[in-house]
């Protein structure tokens, strides 16, 4: 069975930005075969661990688009914004780090849910909850496709 990793990232104190970590918490129970990471931001230190997997799904919140909707995008290990990686690394850059430094990068998707509120508070908006439900519904299917 392909080794699968789901990484949900975002700030749990900024409303719908918590989509990624909240999705990971819910999916843990639904996808016992996968491994999970929940974090504030992606850092280069994740690259080595990422390289050990065959498939990966990054789950993030987005602020562009129709609130409540979800998008999935195939990622390739080709960088992205890379001038500074001290605070945050784009998932594509993280894949490139994994591939270049540790010899392997998993097949990967970026799944984003569009949020409605990113103010200083805990908890999702109604549209954020819709996106969360959709991400959790789609994630097992997407992982199955990615694993083929």
């Amino acid at each position, binding site marked *: 069975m392909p080794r699968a990793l789901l990484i949900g990232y975002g700030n749990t104190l900024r409303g719908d930005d918590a989509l990624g970590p909240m999705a990971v918490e819910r999916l843990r129970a639904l996808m016992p075969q996968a491994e999970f990471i929940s974090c*504030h931001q992606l850092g*280069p*230190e994740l*690259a*080595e661990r990422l390289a050990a997997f065959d498939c990966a799904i990054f789950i993030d919140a987005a602020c562009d688009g129709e609130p409540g909707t979800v998008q999935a995008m195939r990622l390739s290990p080709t*960088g992205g914004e*890379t*001038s*500074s*990686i*001290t*605070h945050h690394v784009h998932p594509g*850059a993280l894949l*490139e*780090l994994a591939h*270049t*430094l*540790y010899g392997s990068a998993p097949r990967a998707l970026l799944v984003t849910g569009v949020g409605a509120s990113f103010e200083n508070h805990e908890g999702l908006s109604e549209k954020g909850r819709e996106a969360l439900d959709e991400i959790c519904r789609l994630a097992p299917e997407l992982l199955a496709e990615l694993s083929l």
Partner: protein
Amino acid sequence: MSTITIDPITRIEGHARVTIQLDEQGEVQGARFHVTQVRGFEKLCEGRPFTEMPALMARICGICPTSHLLASSKACDDIMAVRIPETAEKLRRIMNLAQIIQSHALSFFYLSSPDFLLGMDADPEERNIMGVVRKYPQMARDGIKLRQFGQRVLETLGGKRVHPGWIVPGGVSHPLQAEQRDQILAEIPEAIRITRGALQWFKGQIESFRAEVRSFANFPSLFLAMANDSNEFSAYNGWLRFIDANLNIVADHITGTDYLNYIGESCNDDSYLKSTYFKPLGLADGIYRVGPLARLNMCQSAGTMQADEELAEFRELERHSVLSSFYYHYARLIEILFSIERMETLLHEAEILGKNVRAHASPNNFEGVGILEAPRGTLIHHYRIDQNGLIESANMIIATGHNNLAINHGVFQVARQFVKSQKLEQGMLNRVEAVVRAFDPCLSCSTHAAGMMPLDIQLIAADGTMIDRMRR
């Protein structure tokens, strides 16, 4: 007069701008380092219970939360007038060492190594950490591994890598477990191997950077760092000492009760970063530096075997104190080595697994000061409380503030050396940025800046017309 603006300076923690003034002949007449935004933690903590301060102050920064957590907790210890248990003090020292390791590794490998490996004049599209990853993957792997080691220690002890909450007024919240200690110890040989390798490599590169050594904030100044009776490297306990460029002690045994007699703070019209100075000499002559260079100039020995060997070699660079700020990078690597060795020693001490790790008390003083050596230099937290234990006022002096005058002098020195024409060139601009980078300023800590601005450098003629512009 013309002005060149570098906005923002890249590969530093936080956001700042440099302006360079040219005279009618196009020669550099002045240069200034500006920090452009403010966060104001001194003000927003007023009215909060003093017990909240460590957790609140840790939010000042995502890179150095542990340093603020420690300084804040020490200030709270002072307010409670407690002597924390021996085990707790050692555990706090380990946290501080881990913070030094991860922060220095970030500065050297992530932020500055592109300049060393790819060259000061390299295309900025390539001269970044991904350029290092592509051309020097082993160096990149080592950098990631070393920073990861420091972060893992912070996470093991503090529960999480960023904003750990384990350090509390009176000590730490829970003891270290034997398996946690063993897990850290198991990683130490690899961390030492990487650090020694980086030191060997960097020493071999210095000759290629003679021009930078000569001009990167290379001038006599005072140095401030923590000192102790043994004159060994000290990052957690001790008092403050000023030395001059000839290593003479200028002021000694400065503590939380009298630091304000020696350290003055000056506001600037063009920057949110205050400038501190040695008060007895005044703002004009009281320039001093803090951080790795100051600490290695200050101590007579590191106190660990391998770091002492490296320190002896470092001392041979100059007759008295090492003055070039380019050597901050070198000093950082030696401090990483020291920190790993000292951490290993502490972890092998029997009482490190002791269960008594916290002293409890109500406020016994209306005032408390916490001082320690953060990775970038001396960090001071000073609180006053009312009779209900609520913060009345807070004063924080952070390493980047201590270094502000020196950074400004350094920017001017580098601009004079490298800015030669009215045509902007990347290598010239990068060197101006690189001298700032040598100090590893953390602007989120020192003024609480936020936001990311594009780089916009403008060369403006005396009549106000733009001669040249560069953006990234």
